[in-house]
């Protein structure tokens, strides 16, 4: 395995208490505002997709010691270099040293409300038929994969029940790898705490694409 996500935290021990925070607190430094804005604005150029950016962020060295917006900025820089929009020497000196490369779009101030209201829907119309229906018992993929995926490690190789069918959606695994949208049916799968952890009286629901699932034996 060469792909290792540092972001797959579900079920890990030793992270301590949750520290609640008042509702109005959005940023903890001025640069965090700018980190948010430049990341969203560069995302709007259409050079990469959200799954590719998640893959870049979750594989950043030192992920666990970085704050949220540090992860965003480091991830953005990796994406800019990967797509040859900015080079390391330019970031080092803080100035343009090489000609710009064309991007599909530049987000203008006047377009911000419309672009945000539109978002990036992932639901797709396909000729596919769903393999599963509500109430079906399934088992999740047991093996780890060597690329970005959205099946958390704690939910691998577990029995669950289909609770909802959400239609065909852009498949994060292929989309992240530059292999296209390859839409697949997406399901809400309910797993019991007893199945996941051996004990417990609650349920955990995950959203899982069809390739993550097989009929339960």
């Amino acid at each position: 395995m060469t792909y290792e996500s540092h972001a797959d935290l579900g079920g890990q021990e030793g992270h301590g208490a949750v520290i609640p925070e008042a509702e109005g607190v959005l940023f903890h430094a001025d640069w965090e505002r700018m980190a948010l804005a430049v990341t969203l604005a560069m995302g709007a150029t259409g050079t990469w997709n959200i799954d590719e950016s998640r893959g870049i962020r979750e594989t950043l060295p030192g992920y666990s010691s970085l704050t949220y917006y540090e992860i965003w900025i480091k991830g953005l820089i990796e994406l800019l270099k990967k797509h040859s929009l900015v080079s390391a020497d330019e970031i080092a000196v803080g100035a343009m040293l090489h000609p710009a490369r064309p991007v599909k779009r530049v987000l203008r101030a006047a377009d911000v409300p419309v672009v945000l209201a539109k978002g990036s829907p992932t639901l797709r119309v396909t000729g596919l038929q769903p393999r599963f229906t509500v109430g079906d018992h399934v088992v999740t993929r047991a093996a780890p994969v060597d690329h970005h995926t959205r099946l958390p490690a704690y939910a691998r190789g577990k029995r669950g029940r289909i609770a909802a069918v959400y239609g065909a959606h852009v498949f994060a695994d292929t989309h992240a790898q530059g292999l296209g949208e390859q839409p697949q049916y997406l399901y809400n799968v309910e797993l019991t705490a007893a199945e996941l952890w051996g004990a417990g009286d609650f349920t955990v629901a995950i959203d899982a694409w069809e390739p993550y699932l097989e009929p339960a034996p």
Partner: protein
Amino acid sequence: MELHVRALRTVLEQKGYIDPGALDALIETYETRIGPRNGARVVARAWVDPIYKKWLLADATAAIASLGYEGRQGEMMVALENTAAVHNLVVCTLCSCYPWPVLGLPPTWYKSAPYRSRAVKEPRSVLADFGVRLPESVSIRVWDSTAEVRYLVIPQRPPGSEHSSEAQLADLVTRDSMIGTRLL
């Protein structure tokens, strides 16, 4: 980091990839227009209007869009109703997926390792960190946002609010109650 981000912004502007005005508009949007007051209005409407509530539970995306909240990080919405018997709690163990059009930007704790690691394994203990203790009889359902569906919790209407107006009710709804980490 301050200087580092400023340098990056300068390069991106010089190369013509970003419009400085768009950066200001993005920040202003999430600091003043898109935040948990949007979700609070959705919840208050559901409390006072049974037909709206039914629609919200059947097709949250459309019901929420009818109040003007839609788009980025809320393209497909599902509403989860808390009752005396069922308590819903939302998390994203893999990153920080969160329903932006109705709740705005996620709080730091939502994006942090303690919440992401523990919510799916010991939800009652996580709730205790927020001062919430639920009776054993209440079933807990944890929702891990692992795809592009975004979840909004409809908290229970607080006792004593029978005579409140819809606007007054919206003022009672907190961000955390719509994630499922607090009661009202």
